[in-house]
């Protein structure tokens, strides 16, 4: 059957599984995805369950895989996703998998460690190389004319010069023996470093620095960093320790640097050869790592699936109860009644696979618990069901509004969005998504907005389709009309009249009007008319109310099926009938009045039925409720038809009588049925007492009914309050919900006006230009118009119309019959588990 009208019939089942077959059976059920297991050990700590060890092993495997995946991603190796779905491996294969992952992880860690050590080494050597190269320049400068005198170079910083000069003088003019340290520091630390040195050493050191042009790789974080070489000259040990401390503080690395040029040269050569050696070793290490990762990348998705399946199976097995004999596992699960056979087949397959001889047993159980709500959806109905579930999951076996929503939702949307052009854009976009469904779904984008659109592609598709239809009825295509059948209005004014008045009204009561309406939709003449809005408002307000009342009546009648299904016949008399009468006698009557007005009043020669006398339906309706007479203009009839006044009074009185009917009948019925039960109970009790004749029994009996009495009174007051709220909600709701449907008119008007303004203000200006400059202006105007059309009229207006439609369904329609207190069926399914796991890792 699988129909969407009600949720699936569910049953609670008990499942006995042989210990050795349990794993295979649960695996088969996971592939099937039709069984929701219940936790039979809710009070057992997660760490004390039977298969906690296996789950932990799976966690460990998953961690290793994630590590592998991270490394693969770091190297930018493409991961092969064949989309294949391997079966959950046998439990004994778990050890193999574990061994494989362990080996891979260790190998990778070792390689990484080696690589890091090598890289650190490499970095040190490179830095040393740079130091040797850069300091060469400093030393050469220094050697030119002795350190001290050279410092007198006027172009150098003067403080340095004088300070060192002074010191030189104090030392008695001898050539100074200066110590130095050389090192490398992060470039951005240089200014602070320099300032610190200056302050701490009171200007008694001399710092030279040079930038290393090429960035160096930091081995621990593998970031590219820029560094600078520096050399600090100073005098004395005290300064030396101080300088070294500062260097340490700034994380500068110091390198030994020989003073003699020959040593330096030799060292530089040594360093270069060592760097070359290191490079080859590093290359080999990287190659090895790459090979390992490429091999792993081929299988990693597959492994992920396997490990996640094993984990899910053990996790599920943890929910089971162990039989006393330990031979057998007991599970309780919710199962759709229609699928019991499929499930039994899957269980048999599982038993065969495990080689066990004892078949599993599936028993149906009786329960008073509410079963979960399971709606079997397909890719088309899924989006609509999601709209309903977003409000609340249906109670078990309650009428599901989703099948009706499939049409009413796009229809109400289109009433607000009515424009064929915009509808066509929407239709084409959704049509593309529907056609390219498979490749688009395979892409698995993590763009949230796109995913929302894609999930609702069928909704958007139908919304577009219906908008095209309503747009044709409104005769609105990008705010212009189509003249398919030729307007049924024509002008009979002669040239002089036309010359003398700027605005002229066509007379419907003459040959200006064909006397029959335009066959399909609005006459195109209205789009050009100055008084278009007056005409459209009256029309659109009326259809909003007509559609709204019919929609609400439909909602109330869906409630009837609920009462019939749940065998609550008393609700039909206590609720359904008065509700329908109330709605029909007051509101549907107003709709009928509208139709009467459309039929009776018009360009008639009889003044009673001309536009001069046409009564306002709204005023008539309000006066009907208030029992007031409408003051009439002379020559007009107050009533649209004979006997209207009497009928209306009758309708209002009956409708008002429905209010106490709704309020009182149900609680009274409950009270009476309670009393009847009571009576039987009491009779029963005394009989028992008589028969037994024991004084103890007679003494024990009386308190029980009394206790029950108190409870019932409380219950009854609750019933009264509940019914009162329900009645008030319904009565007030009928009024406010009817008014609420006027949003159909308001949004449709706003949409039409906005699109007209956009055309007039933008595209029309472009179209009015002439010559080839006009072409360019038109091009620009069209661009602006197109962008605004898509951005504002289709996207934003579409969104707002969507939200209003959603509200009309959730509040105005569903409040009439839908409780939505269920909880949804969450089957144990590998598909769902894998999808969510993938989604969370991608986040």
């Amino acid at each position, binding site marked *: *059957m*699988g*129909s*969407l*009208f009600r949720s699936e019939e569910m049953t609670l089942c008990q499942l006995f599984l042989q210990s050795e077959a349990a794993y295979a059976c649960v695996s088969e059920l996971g592939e099937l995805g039709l069984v929701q297991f219940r936790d039979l050990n809710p009070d057992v700590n997660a760490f004390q369950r039977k298969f906690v060890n296996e789950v932990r092993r799976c966690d460990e495997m998953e961690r290793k895989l994630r590590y592998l995946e991270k490394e693969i991603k770091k190297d930018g190796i493409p991961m092969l996703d064949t989309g294949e779905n391997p079966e959950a491996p046998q439990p004994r294969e778990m050890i193999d998998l574990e061994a494989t992952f362990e080996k891979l992880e260790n190998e990778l860690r070792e390689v990484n460690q080696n690589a890091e050590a090598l890289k650190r080494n490499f970095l040190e050597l490179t830095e040393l190389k740079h130091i040797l190269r850069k300091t060469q320049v400093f030393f050469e400068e220094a050697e030119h004319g002795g350190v001290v005198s050279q410092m007198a170079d006027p172009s150098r910083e003067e403080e340095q010069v004088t300070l060192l000069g002074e010191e030189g003088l104090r030392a008695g003019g001898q050539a100074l023996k200066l110590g130095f340290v050389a090192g490398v520091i992060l470039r951005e630390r240089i200014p602070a470093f320099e300032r610190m040195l200056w302050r701490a050493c009171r200007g008694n050191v001399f710092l030279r620095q040079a930038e290393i042009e090429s960035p160096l790789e930091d081995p621990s974080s593998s970031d590219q960093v820029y560094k600078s070489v520096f050399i600090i000259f100073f005098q004395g040990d005290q300064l030396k320790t101080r300088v070294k401390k500062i260097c340490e503080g700034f994380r500068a690395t110091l390198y030994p640097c020989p003073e003699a040029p020959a040593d330096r040269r030799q060292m530089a050569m040594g360093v270069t050869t060592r760097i070359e050696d290191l490079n080859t070793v590093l290359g080999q290490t990287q190659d090895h790592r790459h090979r390992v990762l490429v091999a792993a990348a081929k299988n990693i998705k597959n492994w992920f699936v396997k490990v996640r399946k094993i984990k899910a199976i053990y996790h599920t097995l943890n929910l089971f109860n162990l039989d006393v004999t330990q031979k057998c596992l007991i599970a309780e699960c919710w199962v759709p009644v229609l699928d019991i056979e499929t499930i039994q087949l899957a269980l048999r397959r599982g038993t065969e696979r495990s080689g066990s001889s004892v078949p599993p047993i599936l028993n149906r159980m009786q329960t008073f618990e509410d079963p979960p709500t399971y709606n079997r959806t*397909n890719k088309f109905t899924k989006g609509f069901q999601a709209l309903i579930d977003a409000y609340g999951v249906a109670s078990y076996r309650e009428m599901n509004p989703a*099948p*009706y929503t*499939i*049409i*009413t939702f796009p*229809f109400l949307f289109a009433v607000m969005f009515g424009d064929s052009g915009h509808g066509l854009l929407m239709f084409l976009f959704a049509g593309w998504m529907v056609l390219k469904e498979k490749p688009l779904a395979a892409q698995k984008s993590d763009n949230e907005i796109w995913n929302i659109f894609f999930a609702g592609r069928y909704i958007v598709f139908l919304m577009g389709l219906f908008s095209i*239809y309503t747009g044709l*009825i*409104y005769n609105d295509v990008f705010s212009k009309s189509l003249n398919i059948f*030729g*307007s049924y209005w*024509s*002008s*009979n004014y*002669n040239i002089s009249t*036309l010359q003398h*008045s*700027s*605005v*002229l*009204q*066509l007379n*419907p009561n003459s040959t200006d*009007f064909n*006397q*029959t*309406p*335009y*066959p399909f*939709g*609005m*006459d195109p*003449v*209205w789009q*050009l*008319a*100055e*008084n278009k809005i*007056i*005409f459209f408002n009256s*029309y659109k307000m*009326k*259809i909003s109310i*007509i*559609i709204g009342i*019919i929609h609400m009546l439909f909602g109330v009648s869906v409630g009837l099926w609920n009462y019939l299904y749940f065998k609550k016949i008393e609700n039909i008399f206590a609720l359904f009938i008065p509700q329908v009468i109330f709605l029909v006698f007051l509101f549907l009557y107003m709709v009928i009045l509208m139709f009467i007005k*459309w*039929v*009776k*009043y*018009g360009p*008639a020669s009889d003044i009673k039925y001309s*536009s001069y006398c*046409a009564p306002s339906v709204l005023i008539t309706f309000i006066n009907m409720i208030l029992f007031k007479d409408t003051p009439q203009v002379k020559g007009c009839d107050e009533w649209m038809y004979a006997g209207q006044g009497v009928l209306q009074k009758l309708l209002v009185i009956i409708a008002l009588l429905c209010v106490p009917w709704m309020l009182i009948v149900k609680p009274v019925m409950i009270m009476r049925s309670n009393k009847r039960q009571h009576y039987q109970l009491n009779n029963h009790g005394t009989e028992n007492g008589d028969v037994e004749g024991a004084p103890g029994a007679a003494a024990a009996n009386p308190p029980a009914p009394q206790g029950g009495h108190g409870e019932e009174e409380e219950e009854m007051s609750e019933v009264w309050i509940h019914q009162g709220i329900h009645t008030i909600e319904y009565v007030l709701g009928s009024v406010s919900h009817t008014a609420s449907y006027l949003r159909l008119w308001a949004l449709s008007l706003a949409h039409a006006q906005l699109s007209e303004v956009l055309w007039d203000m933008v595209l029309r200006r472009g179209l009015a230009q002439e010559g080839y400059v006009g072409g360019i202006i038109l091009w620009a105007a069209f661009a602006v118009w197109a962008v605004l059309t898509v951005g504002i009229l289709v996207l934003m207006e579409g969104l707002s119309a969507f939200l209003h439609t959603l509200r009309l369904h959730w509040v105005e329609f569903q409040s009439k019959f839908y409780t939505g207190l269920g909880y949804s069926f969450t089957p144990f399914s590998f598909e769902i588990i894998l999808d969510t796991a993938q989604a969370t890792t991608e986040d």
Partner: protein
Amino acid sequence: MSASPVAVLVFTILWGVVGIVLPFLVPKGPNRGILQAILILTAATCWLFWLCCYMAQMNPLIGPKLENTTLLLIAREWGKEVTS
């Protein structure tokens, strides 16, 4: 007070076929019920929408108010010459 029987019949029959005849022709299958509901509701909503629009124009209480330039253009484009 006038409706063209042709237009009323054409659209009523059109939507009648969609909403009453087609539901019987839906192939048997798990989605039969849904498809029937879709067809019936589509026909009902679309027919109602068309009907309201038609009836609203059946007896217009006002005529369109047009600018004289528009009227002249209408006369030229929609093929009814202006009399002098």
